[in-house]
Each structure stands twice: as structure tokens, then as C-alpha cells.
């Protein structure tokens, strides 16, 4: 057990971040071919038309990493991965809506 003290600043994976296909490949620990297929399948949606012009937002990075993990760990094919990702996105969106709406309703629960 050793202890190293470091002060570091990270990069937020949001709309403000854009990465190239090569960078994304490194971040996902995946092959460029797999990620290329994921774009073709519509699973990832970069800006730009040609692969060398592709720019992925931070949100797409998160999506890509998740896609690579799901595909590997659950032995899914690309179509199955795309479906799982879309459903997960929708599920997260709905959970978020519920959380906000429940807070808006506040204490106005049924008083019997």
C-alpha cells in the first residue's frame, strides 16, 4: 500500500467535448472497425461525413463505451446492442422525468 497525492483536473464528457475516431477507439479499448460499424448501424451519431472528419461528443463517448461493454460482456450483436442502448437511454430519461415530476408534486399526496 502506497499513497500518492495528486491534484488533477478531468474532462467532463458533455456536449462541449469532441473527440476523433482514433481517440474514441483508445477511450473504448475497442477496434476502429467495431466503432465504424456502430456508426454505420446508427448506434453512434458523430458530426461530419467521412470517418476522418467524424467528431464524437462527450455524450457519444459515454454511449460508445457502454456499447462496447454490453457487446463484449453480454455477447450481443450490433443490432441487439443498439436496441439495448436505445432502451437504456429511454429508461434513464423516464427515470429523470419521474424524479423531476415527483418533486414538483411535492407533498401533495393523497390525504385519506
Amino acid at each position, binding site marked *: 500500500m502506497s499513497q500518492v*497525492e495528486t491534484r488533477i483536473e478531468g474532462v467532463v464528457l458533455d456536449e462541449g467535448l469532441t473527440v476523433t475516431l482514433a481517440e474514441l477507439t483508445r477511450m473504448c479499448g475497442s477496434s476502429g472497425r467495431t466503432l465504424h460499424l456502430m456508426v454505420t448501424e446508427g448506434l453512434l451519431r458523430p458530426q461530419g461525413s467521412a470517418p476522418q472528419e467524424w467528431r464524437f461528443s462527450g455524450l457519444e463517448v459515454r454511449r460508445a463505451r457502454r456499447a462496447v461493454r454490453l457487446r463484449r460482456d453480454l455477447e450481443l450483436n450490433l443490432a441487439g446492442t443498439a436496441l439495448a442502448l436505445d432502451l437504456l437511454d429511454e429508461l434513464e430519461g423516464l427515470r429523470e422525468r419521474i424524479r423531476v415530476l415527483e418533486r*414538483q408534486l411535492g407533498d401533495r399526496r393523497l390525504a385519506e
Partner: protein
Amino acid sequence: MEYKDYYQTLGVTRDASQEAIKRAYRKLARKYHPDVSKEPNAEARFKEVNEANEVLGDAEKRAAYDALGNDWRAGQDFRPPPGAGAQEFRFSPEDAAEFSDFFSSLFGREFHRRPGEPRRRRGQDQTVRIAIDLEEAYSGITRQLRLDLPEVGVDGRPSSHARTLNVRIPSGVTHGRQIRLSGQGAPGVHGGAAGDLYLEVELNPHPHFTPDGKDIHLRLPVAPWEAALGATVQVPTLGGAVNLKIPPGSQGGRRMRLKGRGLPGDPAGDEIVILEIVAPPAETEEARRAYRHMAEVLHFNPRAGLGV
């Protein structure tokens, strides 16, 4: 170290076919996959299931495991028999870093001595959840993190490495966002680059404000006359109180937008104020008289729209 009952982990009998083991593994992997699962301890369970599958899913490793005999119970104190680990097994060192001592005592000693090794490998990425207050997300914060990172020692054995990191969380980060700290994950193997560390931000519930992405929702209590006659009232925002003009004739549920008063960013979020009309208590004779007077002069039926 503790004996691991891999059959129990996968919920199969000791004479299960390879096909049955594969099916059981797939089912549990879907259930506990950290990207999908809402189960508590999903990540730890997923690792256990993966480790069990690494052994039972491979005929050679399974045979070596079975050779320990059937008398062991999960959690029992285990000492590897002489000769264990002498055989060569195929798996990747970064997997080994994730597996238990029990696993490495049986399978984990030899991989770095295989001919052709060592192969340079990048360290694993790590993901850590971090909960911060909304005020901290607004202003940004430096947070101290204590991390236990798995690593593979020079002897090829997995060990754990405690580190303290002071991480700057920039202002404007929203619920569920990830922050990537390049090269701060698990160290590489045989000179490979370190993995990355991902922080997943969660916002603690706030007593008044509800974040919705970069927007902030606030239910604002107003008196009936403020809503009816219009008023300028003080509204809390993350950046301090501001004045809000309530137009005359407002009803409960009306939404008003305070542009740019949400979480910072480009563009910044808004604060969305939802008016909530609060009736004053009628606890004194004077208050009751005021209500009766209103009832007389207003001739108001709030249920007219319901047809009653």
C-alpha cells in the same frame, strides 16, 4: 483466503453441462451487468459471476477446480494444495487483476512466465460514483477521493493500491455526467499505459431545488393576492436571491423562466419557477371575516369547469 463455490455463484449443479453453465452465466450477466442493473452491489456480483464463468466456462480450468474435491464450502478457509497453479491457463492479466486471491492461487501465477510474454497491456479503466451537492455543482469544487485501485505486481499477483486524489469538479456539471481523468485508472501491465478513471457525478437531493439537466425547478409559494394582483417577490436561485415580477391574474401552476439562473454552462440552464398559491390559515376571527367577505363579493365557483 476463502474458498469460492463457483457452482453456487452461477446457481448450477456440479455436474452441469458446459451449455447449462453458459446459459446460467448469460442470465446472471444480464441481471447484474453494471450498465443495466439496478440491483444493489451489481458491480461486485457481476465480478463474481464473471470469475465463476472464467473458471467453469473453460473445460481445463473447470477440471483443475473440480480436482480440489467436493468437500469445500463457500467461505471456508482455503490453502492451495501443492502443485496448484503449476499448470498454464489462458486468460488476460487485466482480468486477473479483477479476480479474487482464491482465483489467482489456482490459476494466476503462471501467465507472466509463458513464452512470448510479457506482453505490454494497458491498465483497466475504473469508474467511481461521486455524490455532490447542487451548490457544489453550481460553483465547482475540489473533492478528495480515496481510491483502491487493483494492480498486478511484478510477481504477477493482483494487489490493491490505495491512492488519494484531489479532483477538480468543474462548475456546471449535471446529474449522471461522467468526468474522465486520463491515465488515473489501473496501472498498465509490463510497461503498458495506465487506464483512465471515470467519475460519475450524482447530485444529492436539495430541499428546494430540483435539477433537470442544467435547468433548476423551484416551486414558489405565493399568497393569493400576490397571484391575483401581481407582485414583485424575492426568489432564491443558486447564485443568490433575485426579484421576480409576478403578473396580475396568475394562477397556481404557472411557470416562469429565470433565464440563465440554472447551472452554469454554454448556454447556462434556466431556473423554472412554478407558482404555488398557498391559502393563509383562517385561525383568527379577523381572518375568517376576511374570507367570508371574499366569498360574498367574489361569487367564485372554482369548480365551474367541472360542470357542478
